[in-house]
């Protein structure tokens, strides 16, 4: 099956490949996988604690062209959005943007999962981060 031009574009020039410091309190990491195809996708966001705006996003995906394109697009889309706005991104929007065929819908699902998982990880750090910061200050 032929990939759409947009998939090919993201696949050959993926945006935002790389990683952010996993241990930073401003960084949320989502690692997700689809057993259907054995793909794994890691997506990381760096959030400004004052504004809740996602200032940077990186990804690394091992999988097919559609999975790479979906995660590449996801990093583009979350950048500049607030955390709550990013949570509104739906896999169907990714399907539409990339013209993914039905057999590749799970790739877009994976990208949505990765965004949510990264945000969840970041939120968790915000809840637990404060007492830890206080403890450090006491030391």
């Amino acid at each position, binding site marked *: 099956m032929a990939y759409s031009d947009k998939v090919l574009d993201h696949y050959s020039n993926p945006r935002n490949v790389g990683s952010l410091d996993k241990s930073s309190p401003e960084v949320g990491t989502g*690692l997700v*996988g689809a*057993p*259907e195809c054995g793909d794994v996708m890691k997506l990381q966001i760096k959030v400004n604690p004052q504004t809740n705006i996602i200032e940077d996003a990186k990804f690394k995906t*091992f999988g097919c062209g559609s999975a790479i394109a979906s995660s590449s697009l996801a990093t583009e889309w979350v950048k500049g959005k607030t955390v709550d706005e990013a949570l509104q991104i739906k896999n169907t929007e990714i399907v539409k943007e990339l013209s993914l065929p039905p057999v590749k819908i799970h790739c877009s*699902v994976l990208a949505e999962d990765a965004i949510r998982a990264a945000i969840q990880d970041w939120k968790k750090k915000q809840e637990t981060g404060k007492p830890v910061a206080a403890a450090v200050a006491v030391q």
Partner: protein
Amino acid sequence: MATDISNPVATSSCWSCGEMRAAHFCHACGRVQPPLPVDYFAFFSLPKKLNLDTELLERGFYELSRKLHPDLYARSDQQEQEWSLQQSSLLNDAYRTLKDPIKRTEYMLRLEGVELEEQSKTATEKARATGQIKKQVVPPDLLEEVFDLNMQLEELRAQKKLGEDDPALVEEIGRQKLELEEKHAALVEQLQTCWKAWDRAVDSGNDSDRRSVRDKMIDLLNRRNYIRNLVRDVNQVLES
């Protein structure tokens, strides 16, 4: 009449002599019959079990393939030729599926209404609707492992391209591959235990056992999928 018999559900009597028909041939006149909409177990008249008598399956397969082979119907009318072709292709699908224990398990789960390909999407939709974090169908520790090994494989691929592969990395990846193969064997063993438990739960009509074995099998199959793909990728890189 022709329209009636072309629908296999419409009749359980032989299209030719009107006697009660069997799944593939009429008991009375021996003519080939249109396929019945039955599951693969019923196609072979085998009990619907995961612990299957594979010898019986094999015997049934050879017997039926001899009798159903389209060549035997070369001089029959077109409708019979078509039915023998349909029956033969059903026979091959059914045999291939039931012979392989993994495929058999996946097939049984499908009969139970479990679409392995749909789990991830369903879970995502549920998470979105409830605002809860999605339950990943693959455990996080396995995902970490898959991700890290993929990073190493990527490095090795790049090194090989330059013709300077690092022996320490090759050794490390080889070691992990052995571990994965052990894990794979352990998963298959656990699956075998599940087959027995499944057949028992079905026989005894214990629905809660049945559900818990079903979920266990889904989990094992998902893990197995990852590990199998990963071993395949490792082999590709090591042999390149």
